[in-house]
């Protein structure tokens, strides 16, 4: 049982590292948000799963799950807002938008 926990926590940390790598490597804001939100949420989920068995009582376990859900909702809204803000600030930043615009022209 303890090995499964180590495995899960290790995988969680791995996802965190991947997320951070994504943050550092990716060119612009949108891709970075994408990387961070996805990787970290998954990482946190795995971490939470890894820690669940060692909780003393059910309410404590529920609280762990509640933490994960809250983080999920918060990071989703946050990434939406940041993307929304960056798009509003500089519309040309969208790589995708540039191609669709050129398709419409020709």
């Amino acid at each position, binding site marked *: 049982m303890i090995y499964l926990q180590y495995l899960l926590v290790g995988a969680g940390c791995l996802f965190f590292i991947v997320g951070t790598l994504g943050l550092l490597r990716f060119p612009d804001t949108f891709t970075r948000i994408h990387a961070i939100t996805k990787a970290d949420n998954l990482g946190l989920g795995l971490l939470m799963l890894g820690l669940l068995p060692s909780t003393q009582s059910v309410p404590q376990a529920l609280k762990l799950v509640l933490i994960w859900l809250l983080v999920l*909702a918060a990071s989703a809204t946050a990434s*939406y*807002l940041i993307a929304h803000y960056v798009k509003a600030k500089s519309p040309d930043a969208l790589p995708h938008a540039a191609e669709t615009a050129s398709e419409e022209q020709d």
Partner: protein
Amino acid sequence: MQFAFDSMLGLGLLACAAGVFWSRDLFRSVVMFIAFGLLLALTWVRLEAPDLALAEAAIGAGLTGVLLLDAIGHLRQHKEHSPRNHWLLPLLCCIALALLLILSLNARPEASISLPELVAESLPESGVEHPITAVLLNFRSYDTLLEIAVLLVAAVVAMALNDGLAATARTSAEQSSRDPVLAGFTSRLAPVILLIAVYVLWAGSYMPGGAFQGGAILAAGLVLLKLADFHIERYAESLLRLGLALGFLVFLAVATSVMIGGRPFLTYPEAFAGQFILFIEAVLTFSIGLILFSLFNQSPGQEVPHDN
């Protein structure tokens, strides 16, 4: 293994602090400051002070961070010109101060009183199991009373400065521009925040938590509502004023009414100490939440600064 984590945490703290002080752009400093706050919360956990971790995260990093971000938002340019040139002398005395402090930290004077045992002894009579809440609201309740007064004075001064402003400038634009996603998220999150705040308050009597942490969470919720353009400050201004002072009023009333029974100032009757403390804490949470929110809400509005 413990030491490795501690040293990493300590160096992380120093790195964040260095980031706050020596980064060119102010916005970057504020972000580093919030990161510093979170790391500090972790440090308090390492120092076996969960209450402080909660408070630091909610008030230190959270609320102060929001206030700073809000302030940065209104500054036109974030670059600031070069600091003063004479740096050698201050550098030397700061280093000297640091060395002196560290040297003195391991001093071991023999004659010293051990307060933790005293707290443990008189914990049963204090009416709560959690020692920190006992110290805060029973043994040193006079400090807490003055501290709430400090908060209230800050709110009063904020109101005084704002009354000076023309009333129109403060009410933000009509609510048409509400962002759907944020609104949806906030409307669902608000009840959860309220629930957590009350839970933290309730838990305070037997595990880390209490009035200040609960109040801070409540304030965070209110700030979120304000940011999501739910115009909650439109309620009658005098109600807001009463809410601010309610906590202090109740605390003072309890403190003095006890004296009528012949007991010294701020002495709760033995049997009901727990109930008294919980009642005071509940009202305090409400008031602290409102005060911290009004400190955010009262800050001067959007007027463009004119250079005179």
